[in-house]
């Protein structure tokens, strides 16, 4: 059964065009110039119930606009969409009872009040019976480990703590589908990992459909089974994450800080990108040698002070996808 069905969905905005400076502003005041900007070109895709989908693309690709149309926030220019059997922009209110949304840059939490108060309001907004709400709240507090700061005003929480509260608030009403728009933006690696674990658990235990946008390759690798890449509002890749990884996520970068000058490294697929004193940057083709093997070699042969492993950025992956699909650069 499909959760989301999108057909020929498009969105255009009229954008005011102004030349630089005061003179440009004056010209624009008397003779405004506008142009039609196509944010989303005809999109077609289907998402099955319980699926975890990564919806990727560079900034301005049309990801957020698509999410906003699928949650009924924006009306499309043309085309149709069905989310859980509802037309999002015509049946917005009915649909909203079954949808959760986490916008990394737009908070649902009341800034001057503790999260526990926002949860109370969410229960009223989503009309959750009192007993059910308290049970669900306590379950989420335990699972997301929110206990220590449940009664602390949001303005005094760290970004990671706030984000966990945001996600918990979005899950209170047991949504069937959750739209996560960059949920790990600005978080450190430990908090990112924690949030990924929680999202994965929610999908596994409650069968929630997840629609994720992120610029973090780790989010995609660890959470998603399927990926759709768009740019200039057009789908350029719709495939499984394992296929994408096989084709595009083949390299990792290792930064090393050593206690003494290193010996040469001779492993297939491992190349020294840069070396300066005891600092070293390696590129590893994981199709030829696993990261585990490389790390094991490093620990055995070098005196290690510090090590960092990096995935290629989403922009790099998308650039590769473009090169393969022949659609130009990002």
């Amino acid at each position, binding site marked *: 059964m499909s959760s989301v069905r999108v057909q020929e969905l498009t969105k255009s905005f009229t954008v005011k065009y102004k030349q630089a400076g005061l003179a440009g502003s004056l010209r624009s005041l008397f003779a405004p110039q506008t142009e039609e900007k196509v944010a989303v070109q005809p999109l077609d895709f289907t998402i099955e119930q319980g699926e975890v989908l990564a919806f990727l693309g560079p900034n301005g690709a049309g990801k957020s606009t698509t999410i906003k149309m699928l949650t*009924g*926030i924006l009306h499309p220019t043309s085309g149709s969409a069905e989310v859980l059997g509802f037309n999002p922009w015509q049946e917005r209110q009915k649909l909203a009872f079954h949808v959760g949304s986490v916008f990394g840059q737009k908070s649902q939490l009341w800034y*001057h009040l503790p999260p526990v108060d926002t949860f*109370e309001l969410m229960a009223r*907004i989503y009309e959750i019976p009192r007993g059910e709400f308290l049970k669900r709240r306590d379950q989420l507090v335990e699972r997301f480990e929110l206990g220590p700061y449940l009664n602390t005003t949001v303005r005094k929480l760290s970004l990671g703590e706030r984000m966990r509260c945001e996600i918990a608030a979005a899950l209170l009403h047991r949504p069937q589908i959750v739209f996560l728009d960059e949920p790990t933006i600005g978080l450190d690696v430990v908090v990112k990992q924690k949030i990924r674990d929680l999202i994965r658990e929610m999908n596994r235990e409650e069968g929630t459909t997840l629609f994720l946008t992120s610029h973090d390759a780790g989010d995609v690798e660890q959470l998603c089974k399927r990926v759709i890449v768009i740019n200039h509002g057009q789908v350029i890749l719709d495939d499984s994450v394992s296929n994408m990884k096989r084709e595009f996520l083949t390299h990792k970068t290792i930064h090393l800080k050593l206690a003494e000058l290193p010996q040469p490294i001779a492993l297939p697929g491992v190349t020294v990108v840069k070396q300066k004193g005891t600092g070293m940057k390696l590129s590893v083709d994981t199709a030829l040698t696993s990261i585990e093997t490389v790390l094991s070699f490093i620990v055995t042969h070098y005196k290690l002070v510090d090590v960092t492993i990096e995935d290629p950025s989403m922009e790099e992956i998308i650039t590769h996808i473009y090169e393969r699909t022949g659609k130009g650069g990002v």
Partner: protein
Amino acid sequence: MSTAAKKSLSLLQFLLTTWKLNLAGAMEFRMSFSISVGTMILNNFVWVFFWGIYFTKFPLVNGWTLQDVMMVQAIGNGAFGVAAVFFGNFIGIANIVSTGQLDTYLAQPKPVLLNVLVSKMTVSAIGDLLFCLILYGLYGVHTGLGLAKFLLALLIGAAIMVFFNVLAQSLAFFIGNAEGLGFQVFNAFLTVSLYPTNIFHGLGKLILFTALPAGYISFLPIGLLRDWSNSFVWGAVGVALGLALLAFRVFRIGLKRYGSGNMMTMRM
């Protein structure tokens, strides 16, 4: 319980919870809360002081007594108080629309306009409400009927103030940035709501009962409180309901043109 009754009850519970949290949020900063409320009461009493001086020299303003003028102040400030305390975003819609902050409200299963309106409480307006009650205590008619009429006048005044300004603020959907215009309309509306209607004549009076319908608020002390006039009261109720229907309609049409935005936002 029928489905409609359940829906109404859940909407009421949502409104009460929002107002309760708005107040809790406002009281989070105790000192700022007390100063805002206190200075607003003081500020309003300056007008009472000036009117008091006027009435020591002249007994009437075009037929209006001191009590009538005080009731204009009470109802005008009280209507603003009710609007800004319970529907605090009625003068913030233009900003919310032009900065893309409607997203949060649109993602929730509640009527958008109502959700937006109630989600803010202007702290200083609690001072206006208290000032209104003090004036009623000093100059109002202290009978059951007197109180009922006063509350009705407040309700009508607040409804006209909220929905007329919602209309002005909703221009943001159609002309982009309407914050400046919305602010000017609000200021003009509030100012003329606080003066006796009878000082305006001809075109000025026509505007007060048509384009800028603040006359339906400023005439309430006469047409409703002092000399009940069926035609005026029903007219004022009709204007309030008409403005409400029109505001919801225009806002709904505007939503189709809403363009969202990428500004980082927090609910304050």
